[in-house]
């Protein structure tokens, strides 16, 4: 199979790259701008596969992918699984409650056990930051971070960039306002890296108690004033308030949070008229976002979910697809 070519419609120089430099995808920082564009272009081609009558190509035939989801996840796990099946990989799912970790086995030992069965790819979701790095140090298999603690969620940031590009044509120079629980969000950390690499002007907004420490060193603007963040924004991205990661009162009540930071139709009027509204899900309606905005014409939230499959196909393919094999002995 030849490499998928960028789908038509956009005028972009064809990247000379055909694969990723890094063995793993642990962080959005593993990708440079050229690689990000390659991934987004590849995802466009992958999207077409999803429209076919038979939604399957043999790009990962004979490859074994283990989905190691040690923290509950519905959309990301499902999205990866569909992506793997469309690429004809052999997949195996291991969930936290069914794993030997509940019997007291360490992650390192579990990884060594899996490694003995020689998988090609590990797709990992874990409650602790850095768990994917730990696995990558132990395993020969390539590791894809599907969300580790409060650290990163690079495929989410890629699908967000893909969605933005589909609407705006390009990402350079766009004002992207990211609003919500900044402190606990892995989606935020990956998005900052990715959007900055592509030249976006990134604004963070949330309560002072949930601000990212050292945010001045991330190359972003940070404000607690929602109107300032949203003003003339091209993209308004909401982050879920992660009640499950909050130990201690970061804000007094959901009511007050919504009044100060919730995105309503009225607030959205300060953004550019063609602004899009994004949310990585799952949403807390009436906390981060008013229902009429979530379901309104500017919302691209369900598109994000749909794009997730294509992005994950692109990631898996570019990491472990047949073309990558050609350079192996």
């Amino acid at each position, binding site marked *: 199979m030849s490499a998928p070519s960028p789908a038509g419609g956009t005028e972009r120089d064809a990247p000379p790259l055909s694969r990723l430099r890094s063995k793993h995808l642990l962080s959005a920082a593993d990708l440079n701008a050229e690689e990000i564009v390659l991934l987004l272009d590849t995802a466009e081609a992958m999207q077409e596969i999803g429209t076919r009558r038979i939604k399957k190509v043999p790009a990962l035939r004979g490859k074994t992918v283990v989905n190691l989801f040690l923290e509950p996840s519905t959309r990301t796990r499902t999205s990866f699984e569909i992506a793997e099946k469309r690429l004809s990989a052999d997949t195996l799912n291991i969930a936290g409650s069914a794993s030997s970790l509940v019997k007291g086995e*360490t*992650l*390192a030992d579990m990884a060594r056990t899996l490694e003995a069965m020689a998988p090609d790819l590990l797709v990992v979701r*874990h409650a*602790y*930051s*850095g*768990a994917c*790095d*730990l696995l990558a140090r132990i395993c020969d298999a390539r590791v894809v971070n599907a969300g*580790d*603690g*409060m*650290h*990163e969620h690079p495929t989410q940031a890629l699908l967000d960039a893909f969605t933005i590009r589909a609407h705006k044509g390009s990402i350079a120079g766009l004002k992207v306002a990211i609003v919500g629980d900044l*402190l606990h969000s*892995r989606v935020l*950390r990956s998005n900052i890296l990715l959007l900055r690499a592509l030249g976006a002007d990134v604004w963070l907004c949330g309560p002072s108690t949930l601000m*990212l*420490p*050292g*945010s001045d*060193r*991330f190359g972003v603007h940070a404000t607690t004033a929602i109107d300032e963040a949203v003003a003339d924004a091209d993209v308004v991205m909401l982050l879920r308030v992660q009640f499950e990661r909050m*130990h*201690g009162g970061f804000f007094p009540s959901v009511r007050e949070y919504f009044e100060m930071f919730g995105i309503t139709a009225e607030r959205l009027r300060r953004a550019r008229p063609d602004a899009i509204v994004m949310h990585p899900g799952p949403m807390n309606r009436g906390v981060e976002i008013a229902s009429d905005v979530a379901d309104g014409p500017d919302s691209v939230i369900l598109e994000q979910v749909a794009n997730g499959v294509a992005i994950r196909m692109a990631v898996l393919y570019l990491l472990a697809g047949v073309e990558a094999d050609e350079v192996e002995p």
Partner: protein
Amino acid sequence: MIPDPCVLKAARLVDPGQGVDGECDLRIVDGRIAAVGRDLPLEGATPIALPRDLVVCPGFIDMHVHLREPGQEHKETIASGAASAVAGGFAAVACMPNTTPVNDHAGVTEEIVRKAAAAGLARVYPIGAATVGSEGQRLTEIRELRAAGCVAVSDDGHPIADALVMRRALEYVSMFDMPVINHCEDPSLKGDGVVHEGYRAAALGLRGIPGAAEVVMVERDVTLSELAGGAVHVAHMSARGSLRAVRSGKERDIAVTCEVTPHHFILTDDELEYDTNFKMNPPLRAGEDRTAMLEGLADGSIDAIATDHAPHHADEKALEFDRAPFGVIGLETAVPLALDRLVHRGVVALPRLVELLARNPARILRVEGGTLAPGSVADLTILAPDAATEVAASRFRSKGRNTPFDGWRLRGAVAATVIAGRPVYVNEAVAGAEVLGAAS
């Protein structure tokens, strides 16, 4: 083995306790210093001339180590910890009470003293728990701990969080002329934090511990020491605000002292990745904090360098960063690190380093040593300040391998460690150290 009596002839002896820094002889009789001076007459003693590039100092004392015995012998034992100490140039160590069971009664103290004597290497001074079970509520029987050999009390690993308990502890120890050593960290501000709160913590998605968690308790303890009259010693100080509080206490003649670890005056949170050998409590702080520690070492406001030697088994450190235990080892790296990073870089001169590693720890713990004045024990740390050390964790005598300094190349080495006139460690890699004979 060196003969006793002997006259040890040093091209350079550094003993700030006597104001000595230069060529000097030591007469050692029955494991004690009988005389100090230039060109001492032999009077029947055997002369031993040390190579010119070695420096004789009073035996170094690490006033903050974890020897893990009883109860956690898979991490370290008193014997392996004592062997590690002498290999690192420490003639004595003070061991924290967070063993299993906690060293909160004389029975545990006696066992530690007995095992240390059996090991026959470094002197081991137990530190008793300040409160029963180190639970921070009821004071231990401090008089009895003292009688069994404890030189201080501490709940190290756990802060004494309740201000009234701390007040009572400080009042009570004032009867025994011993300090309360506190791990200063406000538990509510620490929360679930695992690294210093700042940019690196945010980028790695790890929960942060602000420097203020330490500073508020140091400020409190300085104030309580003034109220209660007892001496407080701040363990492993890491934040610049804590140093400010200690300085302010000293200016007011409050009985406060403090120590800093090599990792806190060398590393910062900029170095953080997911390597659990960089996970310790207090965490590696910001560059400004590290700079403040260097200033405090240079200007005298920091009293001691201690390692907070905290061995853990490799399996425990191989967990996810959040789940791995806090702590790094330090006994076999501290002296070369201090020579390289403090002496050779001009932060402190050797006499000041000897104050930090020998004289002041002896003074704070009220133990013998710390000087080589006539009548003192003949505990010596002999340095090769210009010899090369390459840190190799795999060759440590400690059971622990959890060091952030593995592979570092340093200028400065320990040539030998002598306890009561007996060489207990001789570094084969240092030319000329063999004049002391084999370690025994």
